[in-house]
């Protein structure tokens, strides 16, 4: 029932929203196509401006992933997690989630396949993936468009939020699913 409703919402939200905007605009006698084109004009410039920022950041992320830094970090942090009774298998997801959305998605899919989506670990990975964002990507893109390098406390705040989401997911899944 709930899953059906969610499916309906996710399929309808964009078509429904666009139709709603157009209907209201037509009703208010807005010159819809002129206005659309005027707004859309900037899209190209903004995207192209992002190239240096994206190339720089993705090189760091790609190297980090391919060189096996994650395995090293997992090995270092794992004993600590064992003491706190946190499943070690979830650690790679926690490390990659703020850094790379696609890598985190692959790790989540892997956990779901290996342990099953309805295991505690599968539910925990799902909750964790859904509750935070790819901090590094957002910072790169958002500050990149306006060429800001001095990002002040934006990075530590984003990483703290990821850590909070990570811990909250573990606690909540323990309470709800066991």
């Amino acid at each position: 029932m709930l899953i059906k409703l969610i499916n309906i919402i996710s399929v309808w939200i964009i078509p429904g929203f666009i139709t709603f905007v157009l209907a209201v605009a037509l009703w208010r006698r807005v010159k819809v196509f002129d206005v659309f084109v005027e707004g859309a004009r900037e899209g190209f410039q903004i995207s192209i401006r992002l190239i240096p920022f994206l190339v720089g950041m993705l090189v760091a992320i790609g190297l980090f992933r391919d060189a096996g830094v994650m395995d090293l970090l997992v090995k270092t942090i794992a004993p600590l997690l064992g003491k706190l009774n946190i499943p070690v298998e979830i650690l790679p997801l926690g490390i990659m989630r703020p850094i790379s959305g696609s890598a985190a998605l692959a790790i989540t899919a892997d956990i779901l396949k290996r342990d099953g989506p309805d295991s505690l670990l599968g539910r925990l990975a799902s909750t964790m993936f859904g509750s935070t964002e790819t901090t590094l990507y957002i910072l790169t893109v958002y500050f990149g468009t306006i060429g800001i390098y001095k990002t002040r406390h934006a990075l530590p705040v984003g990483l703290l939020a990821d850590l909070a989401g990570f811990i909250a997911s573990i606690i909540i899944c323990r309470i709800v699913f066991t």
Partner: protein
Amino acid sequence: MIGYLWAGMICLAVLTAALGGNIGAVTPSIFAAAEQGVKVAFGLISIMTFWLGMMKLIESSGIIDLIKKLLRPLAQFLFPAIPRDHPAMSAILMNMSANVLGLGSAATPFGIKAMEELQRINPHQDTASNEMCTFLALNTSSLTLLPTTVIALRAAAGSLNPAEIVGTTMIATLCSTAVAVIADRLFRRRRER
């Protein structure tokens, strides 16, 4: 700060590769990722163009006034320094609405537009303003209520109840967003002292 993280990640990666006898993989990895960066930017062109056009329609049709009216208390709490009718406020509210409603592809174009407008009222052009930091805190901590990607992934993996993680995800998202907003305020206050 990002600069240190960036250089740190690269140096750590090269060092790890060297110690692991894997140094040959570094060069191809660099150029594959650089190509990926260009692809991501090109992939953005289409959705940026489309949603920036829609955004203009949301503004000129007056739908934005409705959104503003609904979210005013929240907006004033989070961004007290932005004048109510400034275009930055419109873009921020549209980005937040897109996130909450699950209009995933629209959130980034709206967010980028918000950053451009915030830059216009930024006193130091090379440094992030307070409002930018708060806005980034909201976006990096995720505001999404329905984690549709994960639900689809769970369904594909044969889950008996793919949507059962909606509740836990919402609570975890609330926790991370609360921590982000509070941490942002604390950092800001420490700096102003």
